């Protein structure tokens, strides 16, 4: 929780300096750090979901969050690099598309596994599944 709080503080640090105009400007044309903070938050939420939730579907959704956090980072850096005029400015966007494709495939396979698991075990609660210890 303290990590989340400190990140929130980082997000609004500029705003807490007081000036609304600057805050509006910051919202209208956010700089790189804001995207990164959002990405980090998404990532942390995803990881927390994976580690703590018992429903395998929710864990699955959390993994999607992690992937999207990564996508957000790609896009953010791509935008940042566009501003700096770099040659590789669109690599991040291409990567994001790739990640989406992989995520779709992963979702298909993952859901299939879930269904197969349910048919065998009659459950989707991960604390009831300890097959990794034989």
């Amino acid at each position, binding site marked *: 929780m303290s990590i989340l709080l400190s990140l929130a503080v980082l997000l609004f640090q500029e705003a807490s300096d007081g000036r609304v105009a600057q805050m509006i400007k910051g919202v209208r044309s956010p700089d790189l750090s804001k995207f990164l903070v959002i990405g980090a938050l998404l990532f942390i939420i995803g990881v927390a979901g*994976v*580690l*703590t939730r018992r429903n395998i579907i929710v864990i699955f959704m959390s993994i999607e969050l992690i992937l999207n956090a990564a996508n957000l980072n790609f896009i953010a850096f791509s935008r940042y690099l566009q501003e700096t005029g770099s040659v590789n400015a669109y690599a991040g966007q291409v990567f994001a598309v790739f990640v989406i494709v992989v995520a779709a495939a992963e979702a298909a396979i993952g859901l299939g596994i879930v269904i197969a698991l349910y048919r065998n075990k009659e459950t989707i609660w991960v*604390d009831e599944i*300890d097959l*990794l210890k*034989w």
Partner: protein
Amino acid sequence: MYRYIWLVPLLPLIGAAVNGFFGRKFRFSEQLIGGIAVGSVALAFLISVAAIISYGWGSHAQWPNTYVTSQDGAFKFDWIPGGAVLQTQGDEARLSAELDKKAREKFAAMTPEERQKNPAVLVGAAITPRSSVLNVEWSYQLDPLSAVFMLIVTGVGLCIFVFATGYMHGDAGFYRFFAYMGLFMFSMLVLVMGSNFVMMFVGWEGVGLCSYLLIGYYFDRQEAANASRKAFITNRIGDFGFALAIFAVIATFGTAQYTDVFAQAKEFPIELVGTWGLMSWIALGLFVGACGKSAQLPLHVWLPDAMAGPTPVSALIHAATMVTAGLYMVTRTNVIFQHSQTMLLVVTLVGAATAIFAATIGITQNDIKKVLAYSTVSQLGFMFMACGVGAFVIGIFHVMTHAFFKALMFLGAGSVIHGMHHEQDMRRMGGLKKYMPYTYLTFLAGWLAICGIIPFSGFWSKDEILWNAASTTHIPLGWIVWLIGTIAATCTAFYMTRLVAMTFWGKERFLEPPAGGEADEAYASAYDKGLSSHDAKLASAGDRPRHEPGEHVGRVDHHVHLPHESPRSMVIPLVVLAVLATIGGFVGVGPAFRFMGWGEHPGGKLNIVTWMNPIIWNPTTHEFGSAEGGGHAGTEVAHTELVPAPPEALERSEAGVYGNVHTTLAQSVEHGVHNELATEWLFMVTSLMVAGIGIGLGLLFYVKDTRLPDIWAQRLRPLYQASYNKYWVDEFYGWAITRRTMDAARAVYAFDSKVVDGIVNGLAALGRLSSRIVGGFDKYFVDGLVNTIAAFIIRLMSPLFRAAQTGFTQNYALVMVLGLMLAVALLFWPDIAAHLPKTK
């Protein structure tokens, strides 16, 4: 043309190689195999004839010199090149010879007054260590001796090859037979054409090998396999002596080339009877080799057994060519033999003993080939007798005539065996002249030749041998040799008449049903085995069980195969050889016919005595080419004027012409009749007479009254038994040598299996024991220690690690995340630390 003699041995070798390597692989037909073999030998024969004509009579004739193919670069390769030899032998003899020579020269240079005044001739010589480079080359030699042998080997060989194509017809190993035969021709030609002792040894061993292969040609028959081994082993004994002699020659003369050796050897002093000098030892070694190869007395046992081979082999190898290799060698080295009167005596006595010994055995044998085999041994004895009394040329002359008539008789016997469907026992033959007229007529020529009836070839050579024995001055005791030879000649005539009578004349005994007894073992054996009698005869004689006379045999199904004349391929060689056996002796018409105005040796170079004279060393002149030829030098030598009052060194030298020989038989007779020519005629008539007596006795016993042999066998039972059992020599060797060898082998085997193996096995047991101890230590102590510690540690640590493995996916994911965070923290620690809120 004589430049091409290297082709002569090569052609049969090529033929043999083609037949041997491809004959089976490509399934050559009999015509092809026979064509290759006969063609190669025929070509070799033609080249030999052409070469010898050009050697003796051509525009660049070399006769009487020795022609070696290396001398004009016609053919030569360095076979065993370069090796330094320290000549350790013969220094003393050489020194004394040098002294003799110097003394002679000095003495000859003196005036008669000086000789009277001071007979002592002082000369000096010193022994200097000698060495030379031994360079053994492979080149061929053409001289009068090798020319004669080339003609015999290729000519008689050609006849036998042609005969064999008929005789071996239908044999499964046809190609193998002719490959061996071709290889034999090659080896034999290398033996007689080689230009040095080492090449002769190669040929010598080569013919021994081929003899072994061909005796054992029917190797599936125990008898033949045993005979081939026996021949090989017996020959090894002789070869050992031969090899030692070659080493001695090299150690003495520093070379193996005939021409070099003999040029040196002729300068050595002569060793009189009873002394054993260097020359005697070399000659002894050579003669031991000759004894083995030519089946002389202690080593004769292999030749009769060798008859287990096919009959053409017996004709070619064991009658005409290989067994005469000993004669070739003795004649080739006649310089060395003539330097040792001791060895001349030994050669004569061994020859004479063999002649009479084998002749008496031949009288009682019943196997047609065995009779011929013993006859061959006996005739070889005659030849050695001739060499021993100094008549080397006459020995070779007899080799030649013997090659003709004995090859003829062996081939005749082969034809008989072929016609009789593999019957070899003469007691089951008889009356064959009706069925096999050509074989019969040609055989008669051989019979008259070996008996010594004028003008058949055997007469000329045998008469000359006996005459030389009677008139020899080379050795003492010539008259005893003459007597033995005469008796042996009588026996020869007798047993040959017996053979002819039992085979070709009289009742047709093969028509009679088997009467039992030893002659019908084959039938009895067939009864036991349930075979037809014809098949039984093909089976090995050695395998047959012993039966009581008359047991079973009467009941065996008896159907007669009538004998038949052999095919043309077998008859033509017989006719050719018969012609040779009849007229072949005219190349050696003796000096007894000089009253016809022909001279001593009519025919010039065509007379074998004149032809071969250049290679015979003359002890009187110490040069090659005796004026007389043969042993006739003897009578002249006795009258040679010696230098008067010789000094001591001179005395030693002059004794070299065998001056101490007593009066010979011929001289005694001549003393009685006062006419040299009459003496010679007297001896000739005697030899004709003994032949007549032998034939007459044979006719009396086997034609006129056929009960006589049995009666006399009973009367002279011990003698008959001794002869019939071949004087028990095989039994004696079996007891004295084979059994002793086996005993020794068993003893050595026992030592090996008990002591040597015991030591080895004991050491092994010791090793096993120690390894068991070490193994126990390792297993119980070392392994125990390791296992205990390992088990302790694992028991201690395992709960900890086991607890970490929950099996829940999320736990593992948590660990991954923690690890990731840790990695990030470590990697970016300075940046993170800079952004952390300051606590102070």
